[in-house]
């Protein structure tokens, strides 16, 4: 029963009269599109007119002068502003940058360390040459005999044969120190320790 109703409903829905657009629909639509296109082109033409006005031969020099004045005024005003605001300020010292001379840095040469396999050890027997031999016993017996000892002075003063005097200054004695030493003789730290150890 329910299905029957649904089927009828669906059939009726499909058979509902079709609504169609009006006869002048396309014409109206085209009119709207044409208006839109016209507006779009008008926008462009307006922009072009604006550009043309800027590049007008009469207006262009005047505009250029005006712009130049504007730029000059802007820079002057900017400088004034800076001087007003930063007059009391001392410029910081700027570090002078000196360009370093381009030094050619040569890479350190590699020291070749001989590898173990490169070292060749050769054993060569070299005979010692010590000259002609001397018999020490013979030499000693000759030199040590008293007969050969000459009356030579130990220190030779060649030009002074006369007797002479040498003044030796008397030794300076500090009696106070000597007395103190005498009194405290033997009373060093060690002696004190010894005394104490005895007491123990």
């Amino acid at each position, binding site marked *: 029963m329910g299905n029957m*109703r649904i089927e009828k409903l669906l059939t*009726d829905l*499909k058979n509902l009269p*079709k*609504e169609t*657009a009006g006869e002048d629909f396309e014409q109206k639509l*085209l009119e709207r599109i044409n208006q839109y296109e016209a507006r779009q082109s008008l926008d462009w033409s307006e922009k072009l007119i604006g550009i043309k006005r800027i590049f007008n031969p009469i207006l262009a020099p005047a505009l250029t002068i005006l712009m130049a004045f504007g730029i000059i005024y802007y820079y002057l005003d900017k400088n004034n502003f800076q001087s007003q605001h930063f007059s009391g300020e001392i410029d910081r010292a700027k570090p002078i940058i000196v360009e370093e001379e381009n030094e050619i840095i040569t890479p350190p040469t590699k020291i070749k360390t001989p590898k173990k396999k490169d070292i060749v050890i050769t054993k060569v027997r070299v005979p010692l040459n010590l000259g002609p031999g001397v018999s020490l016993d013979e030499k000693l017996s000759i030199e040590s005999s008293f007969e050969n000892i000459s009356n030579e002075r130990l220190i030779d003063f060649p030009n002074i044969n006369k007797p002479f005097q040498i003044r030796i200054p008397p030794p300076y004695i500090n009696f106070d120190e000597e007395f103190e030493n005498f009194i405290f003789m033997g009373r060093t730290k060690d002696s004190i320790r010894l005394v104490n150890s005895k007491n123990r």
Partner: protein
Amino acid sequence: MDKSERKKFSSKTDEELILEFQKTNSIEIFNELVRRYKDPLMNFLFKFVGSRTVAEDILQETFFRLYKNKDYYTTVAKFSTWIYTIASNLAKTELRRQNRRAFFSIQGTNNKEEEDVSEIELPDETYRPDVQADSNIKFKIIQDALMKIKPIYRELIILRDIEDLPYEEIAEITGLKLGTVKSRINRGRLQLQELLKDIYYE
């Protein structure tokens, strides 16, 4: 557009035409697309919004947008899906606007799930057996009943049961999942049946 031009375009698909329109900006191609879709869209829009004047305005706006935004079309979707989506969105916007106006005159109390268009239930005196004789009246009643169901159901019923579009395409137009489309169509039909029970009483 003369007959020879029509013959030239008649062999081409909608997708081929729109791509050619994108390239050439030819008004003849645009007219061909208008000629193909103006009546089905008008039927859909009239059934959806319930007013011929409003439907025609929306239809014009739809084609105007097609003209302006032709470059946005990509071959990912079918042309019919694209144009129906534009028309459907414009119709929904119009219904919301109407609803906002109605809100100040008769304040609806419907604040249920998923729909922002409030329904105003008014007693209907027309669904009586004695006024069913003429089929024109019957169709009028059905149209009125369509306007009484929620727009989310109405749109789907029109697309499926009147425009005869496949479920997949309806899902693409509305942006809903296929299952949701089917269930909503079912619910919409039941609502419609309930409203028209006096007609289908036997």
